[in-house]
């Protein structure tokens, strides 16, 4: 199966659970499991090749210009992780089916789970660091959704936010680091990067890149001091904890360190940063875990500790330590996922996870007892279980690693970590299952059905088998996975239980014995621990976050306080700055054009423009008058477009002008008719300086531009030369819109449609609040006039409508060769309809409107898209236009161009967007007594009819 399909399957499958939940919870779980199983089978098909030592690849150049290629590759490390993600994922899906209660939305849960699974598979299969980053962020997002799955619980929401903040921040650092790395190597392909060890390590950017990448890894893998989010993420449902926080997501950081191991490791910086962080995390996590009373809290800190262990092994930088790390990744995933699931089972059966309230469960929950005991012993490192093997390897490595000249520091601390690890593992067994039976369980503990214990059961069987026959079960997998981590020959190692009496065995013995002693002393130590002051990570985190929020709010309130004048002022100052910088740093050629003579018409227009603008300034407090004056300005602008031989612009301007004025009038209907008086002279002065400066600046810029030839030849020449031959139209403006820059136009109509739909959505949401009542009860500031829909207007607009539509059609059809086109035609058609709204009222007109405007917008975008895609049938790129000339008897020769079809899309989108926006705005003024079946208020014919009926 192609790697693309393996990575895509979970994403595609994520659509299914939400749909199939309607067919029942079993169907939902089965389909989710099938998707994962299918991906797992696909992985299995590729496994033999990888086990032979080949690397399976799948490549597509996506955006080669950015170095972003959709490249996937599957090597030993990828196979190990993908197998873990999909395999444990399958078990978790089975477990979750029985874990989730009827009140939980199972479809949503499985959808999130599959999204997460897809993101994880994407990370481990990516051969492009940019792709990897995308998937990395996706895991942060999907885990946010999963941790906060029980969003009615505050812990769930807070834990999810904390996890997102920490891993998201790490993700940002990682992006920086990865971009640096790509910059050093000159390629974003992992396979290239992995072969450039010398280039990377000799680069001055090595250290910053290393630190940034490690920040990403450490936050994701909950390494000290970022470990605090993991325990809080335990608010998630237990399947999520078992999946994300033992087997997969927290291992993403480890994966990345392992993936980058060949190029990043081996330096002093790597050793001291990674190994030290791992060591501290291991010891700190283990110590805290011993004193946690929450079962999942204990497991969370133990996970932190084990992740630290693996990090430390990777940090050693020796091949044999890397092998141990890979082996422990497998072992940890098996026993820790099983342990999390047993914690969920206990929670399910006894309705509490508090160790202090448990104990004596061994006879009440025998199956769970067996599973949990085996898994815990494996975690403690007791032979013959798999945890013992990798812990031995770790201790062996620690025993002869020198840290800053000290021979004993690392072994002692590693042994201490192992000791606490053994202690909390024993505590999990003895304080939960051993001891006397109690009378005060919140619920009667009982073993669950097979559906819930089958998954952890399988995992502990695996843990035992790996422990007994390590070489047979995982020997090859460890070998090839370590091979891809090390990137060279494997060192000599042997996976077996008995290595003879060596330092590691002695340390192991000390750890187990010490662990038993600690367990015996636990009661008094616990009192001591609770008496000691400890930094509370959540509190510190909350203080930091609230500090950041305050800072952000401070900044936002100063810049984004809702005053448009302030935004404009900021914008103007910024543009001034930019303009001044450009003027200072650029060069300007001497003016080489001569001024044209000003014709009387131009002067008259200019005077009108100046006068109307001055009038706007003078009368701006009267909003209605200001609007009329702005309308005058707009009309003169459109006339000057016409005068300067830009008829397309003139047509557009004049129709936009009409629509805008109506839109503003609608808004004015609900606003005070006068703006408040500005009292502060400082602000007046600021505004005056900025606006006069802005106007003069733009004027000077335009003057400077028009007095010179352009430095580079303009693209206009190309457009004019190729308009007819390439685009089949003589109207260059239209050919640019629908052909040369068709893709831009396509984007623009989508944006326009979205804008209109946003206006609609805002209206909907505003009108569903208390504001609706205020609007309905508002007292208009002027008395409303009678005869709002006068007969003359109604009749005239009815007469005009076909004419206006005909004009729109005419403008549309001639658009390709003469001024016009879909955009203008759309506006004109919109005006034809708006006239009806104005004449007969909103209620009357919209009752006669059969097609929803959303649909018209959508149809427009679809028509444009389908036209663009039609080019594919001709084996041409998207939006390539075709045209030909047709002769029909009785008609002139005429042209058929696909561009016209595209223009139809533009027409529909513009038409729908304008009317949807206007309709939305009209709804604010709606009153219940507006509704009428009559087109006009006073109709003599109607009156006579009533009178005659009365007679």
């Amino acid at each position: 199966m192609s790697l693309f399909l393996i990575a895509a399957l979970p994403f595609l499958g994520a659509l299914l659970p939400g749909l199939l939940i309607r067919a029942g919870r079993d169907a939902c779980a089965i389909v989710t499991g099938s998707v994962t199983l299918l991906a797992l089978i696909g992985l299995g098909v590729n496994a033999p090749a990888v086990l032979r030592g080949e690397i399976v690849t799948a490549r597509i150049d996506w955006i080669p210009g950015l170095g972003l290629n959709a490249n996937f590759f599957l090597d030993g490390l990828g196979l190990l992780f993908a197998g873990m993600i999909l395999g444990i994922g399958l078990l978790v899906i089975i477990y979750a089916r029985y874990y989730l209660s009827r009140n939980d939305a199972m479809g949503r849960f499985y959808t999130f789970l599959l999204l997460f699974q897809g993101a994880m598979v994407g990370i481990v299969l990516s051969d492009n660091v940019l792709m990897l980053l995308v998937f990395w962020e996706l895991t942060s997002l999907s885990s946010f959704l999963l941790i906060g799955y029980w969003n009615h619980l505050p812990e769930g929401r807070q834990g999810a936010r904390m996890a997102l903040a920490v891993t998201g921040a790490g993700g940002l650092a990682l992006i920086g680091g990865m971009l640096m790395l790509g910059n050093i190597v000159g390629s974003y392909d992992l396979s290239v990067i992995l072969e450039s060890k010398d280039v990377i390590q000799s680069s001055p950017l090595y250290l910053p890149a290393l630190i940034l990448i490690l920040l990403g890894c450490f936050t994701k893998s909950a390494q000290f001091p970022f470990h605090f989010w993991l325990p809080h993420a335990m608010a998630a449902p237990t399947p999520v904890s078992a999946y994300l926080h033992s087997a997969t997501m927290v291992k993403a950081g480890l994966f990345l360190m392992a993936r980058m191991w060949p190029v990043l490791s081996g330096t002093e910086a790597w050793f001291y940063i990674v190994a030290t962080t791992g060591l501290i995390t291991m010891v700190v996590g283990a110590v805290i875990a011993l004193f946690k009373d929450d079962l999942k809290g204990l497991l969370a800190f133990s996970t932190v500790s084990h992740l630290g262990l693996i990090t430390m092994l990777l940090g050693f930088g020796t091949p044999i330590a890397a092998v141990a790390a890979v082996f422990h990744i497998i072992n940890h995933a098996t026993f820790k996922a099983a342990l999390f699931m047993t914690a969920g089972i206990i929670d399910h059966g006894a309705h509490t996870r508090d160790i202090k309230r448990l104990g004596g469960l061994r006879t009440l929950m025998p199956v769970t007892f067996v599973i949990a005991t085996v898994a815990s012993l494996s975690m403690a490192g007791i032979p013959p279980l798999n945890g013992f093997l990798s812990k031995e390897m770790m201790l062996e490595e620690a025993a002869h690693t020198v840290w800053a000249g000290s021979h004993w520091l690392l072994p002692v601390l590693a042994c201490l970590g192992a000791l606490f690890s053994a202690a909390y593992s024993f505590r999990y067994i003895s304080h939960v299952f051993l001891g006397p039976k109690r009378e005060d369980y919140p619920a009667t503990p009982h073993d669950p059905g097979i559906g819930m214990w089958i998954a952890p059961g399988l995992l502990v069987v695996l843990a035992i088998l790996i422990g007994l026959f390590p070489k047979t079960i995982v020997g090859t997998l460890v070998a090839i996975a370590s091979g891809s981590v090390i990137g060279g020959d494997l060192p000599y190692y042997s996976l077996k239980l008995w290595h003879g009496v060596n330092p590691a065995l002695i340390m192991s013995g000390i750890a187990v014995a010490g662990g038993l002693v600690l367990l015996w002393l636990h009661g008094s130590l616990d009192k001591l621990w609770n008496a000691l002051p400890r930094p509370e990570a959540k509190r510190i985190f909350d203080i930091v976050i609230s500090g950041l929020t305050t800072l952000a709010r401070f900044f936002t309130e100063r810049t984004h306080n809702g005053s448009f004048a302030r935004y404009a002022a900021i914008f103007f100052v910024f543009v001034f700055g930019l303009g001044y910088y450009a003027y200072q740093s650029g060069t300007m050629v001497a003016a080489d054009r001569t001024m044209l003579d000003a014709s009387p018409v131009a002067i008259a227009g200019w005077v009108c423009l100046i006068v109307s603008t001055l009038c706007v300034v003078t009368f701006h407090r009267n909003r209605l008058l200001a609007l009329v004056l702005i309308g005058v300005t707009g009309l003169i602008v459109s006339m000057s477009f016409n005068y300067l031989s830009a008829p397309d612009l003139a047509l557009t301007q004049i129709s936009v002008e009409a629509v805008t004025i109506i839109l503003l009038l609608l808004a004015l209907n609900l606003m005070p008719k006068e703006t408040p008086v500005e009292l502060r002279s400082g602000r007046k002065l600021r505004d005056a300086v900025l606006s006069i400066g802005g106007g003069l600046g733009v004027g000077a810029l335009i003057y400077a531009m028009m007095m010179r030839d352009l430095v580079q030849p303009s693209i206009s020449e190309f457009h004019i030369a190729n308009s007819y031959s390439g685009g089949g139209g003589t109207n260059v403006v239209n050919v640019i819109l629908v052909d040369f820059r068709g893709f831009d136009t396509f984007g623009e109509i989508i944006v326009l449609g979205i804008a209109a739909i946003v206006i609609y959505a805002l209206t909907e949401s505003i009108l569903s609040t208390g504001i609706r009542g205020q609007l309905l009860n508002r007292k208009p500031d002027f008395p409303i006039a009678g005869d709002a829909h006068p007969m003359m207007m109604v009749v005239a607009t009815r007469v005009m409508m076909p004419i206006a539509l005909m004009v729109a059609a005419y403008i549309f059809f001639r658009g390709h060769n003469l001024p016009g086109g879909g955009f203008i035609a759309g506006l004109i058609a919109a005006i034809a309809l708006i006239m009806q709204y104005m004449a007969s009222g909103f209620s009357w007109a919209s009752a006669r409107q059969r097609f929803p405007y959303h649909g018209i917008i959508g149809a427009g975008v679809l028509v444009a898209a389908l036209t663009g895609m039609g080019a594919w049938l001709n084996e041409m790129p998207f939006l390539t236009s075709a045209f030909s000339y047709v002769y029909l008897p009785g008609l002139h020769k005429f042209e058929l161009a696909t561009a016209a079809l595209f223009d139809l899309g533009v027409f529909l989108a513009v038409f729908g967007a304008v009317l949807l926006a206007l309709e939305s705005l009209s709804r604010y003024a709606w009153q219940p007594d507006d509704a009428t079946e009559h087109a006009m208020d006073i109709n003599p014919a109607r009156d006579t009819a009533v009178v005659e009926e009365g007679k």
Partner: protein
Amino acid sequence: MSILFDIAITAFLIISGVFGLVGSYGLIKLPDPMSRLHAPTKATTLGVGGVLIASMLHAIAVEGQVSLHELLITLFLLITAPITANFIAKAHLHRHVERDQLPDAAPDDCWAVHDIEPFQAGAEPSTETTK
């Protein structure tokens, strides 16, 4: 023949100019909005109409083709001008003229503009309105 066309075109242009001037002058000179409404109607109908006829004649005489665009312009002018005037008058009556200052609007009890005032505080329900 061409001299006749020239004279006709000139005459229409002069007529339109005169009416344009008269209309503009009236706009300034006339005392109140209702009277003032009359002045620009002269400018739009006769003033612009004269120019349009002159333009059509010019097309026939000089360019040798029949131009009908002007008829369309005339149509639009004739449709829109009365509606504009109607709205200005209605706005004036509504904003500046009290109800009791208006003459009787027989057979209805009041003018259309003042007919329905659902939002006006203290407005008495007009029971006799025939609707």
